[in-house]
């Protein structure tokens, strides 16, 4: 027979378990700050990489820029759209996609729209990939 005057061992174990279950998410919130910083850094680097590619395309003469869609390896090679190799620094580790479109006025190309998309890993161990897109226009200044 058990007259309930105290707390039984089972009760204490259950209570501790419940407390742990409640506190776990709270501590996860604390550690997410660290992860956010890592994600910000990854995005900053991807942004830098996109600017690097973009600046190089803007730098070359207008008639050398060829319209089309290009994959990562074509972007690294550079010959198919820029007539010259693209120089890579941090960009080496990133997957990039490049799209160059003509904007025409009465049959003449007056602008080129350049879209650079960089895929990157937000954190070291994450399975999903995020992407960063940068768009700009280049004007045909030759006429």
């Amino acid at each position, binding site marked *: 027979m058990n007259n309930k*005057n105290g707390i039984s061992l089972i009760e204490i174990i259950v209570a501790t378990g419940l407390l742990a279950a409640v506190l776990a998410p709270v*501590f996860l919130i604390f550690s997410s700050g660290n992860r956010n910083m890592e994600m910000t850094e990854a995005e900053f680097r991807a942004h830098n990489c996109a600017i690097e590619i973009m600046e190089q395309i803007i730098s070359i003469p207008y008639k050398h820029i060829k319209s089309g869609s290009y994959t990562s390896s074509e972007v690294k090679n550079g010959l198919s759209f820029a007539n010259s190799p693209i120089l890579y620094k941090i960009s080496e580790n990133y997957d990039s996609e490049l799209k160059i479109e003509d904007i025409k006025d009465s049959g003449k190309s007056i602008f080129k729209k350049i879209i650079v998309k960089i895929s990157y890993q937000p954190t070291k161990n994450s399975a999903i990939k995020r992407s960063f897109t940068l768009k700009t226009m280049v004007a045909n200044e030759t006429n």
Partner: protein
Amino acid sequence: MKRTKKAFTLIEIIVVSAISAVFITTVVMLLINFRKGYSKSEYSGILMQESALLIARIRTDLNNAVDKQIYSSENQLVFNAYNNTKGIVEPIVYSLEKTSQGHIITRKEGNEKARTIVKNNVASLTWQTKLDVYDTKPIPVKRLSIDFDILLEAPNVAEKNFRLKTSIFPARLNKQIN
């Protein structure tokens, strides 16, 4: 013998204190790790911000650069740029200087006083001007770039540093030389 349950038995108290010891240790360890991680990520944020600011500043200045002569040495980067507010061309000087606390990067525009952009955290910095000529048809393409390799280090948290390797291709200057 009949036992009336009026108090805890010794076994019960030992088990409970063992469980709570494990629990409290975990919580304290989590808190300590959190504090460590916080100070680390706080500094990495600061360092990232500083290097982003420096690169953005140089990039904007180079967009206004008018003279393709960009002089870069171990501790100086000098070029002429158009000043929008004054309407004249002025030299812009970035320099890496050594102070008692550490290395700093300053920026000087024309006759103005040099201003500190990155304070004390600079561990190493290289800037190298490059002119590549590609033998393309029909005309060769030239490309002017400045390579950067910046390493920023927090003064106390030695294991946390921020390295940025990037290149700036001044668009207007590149248009001019091609």
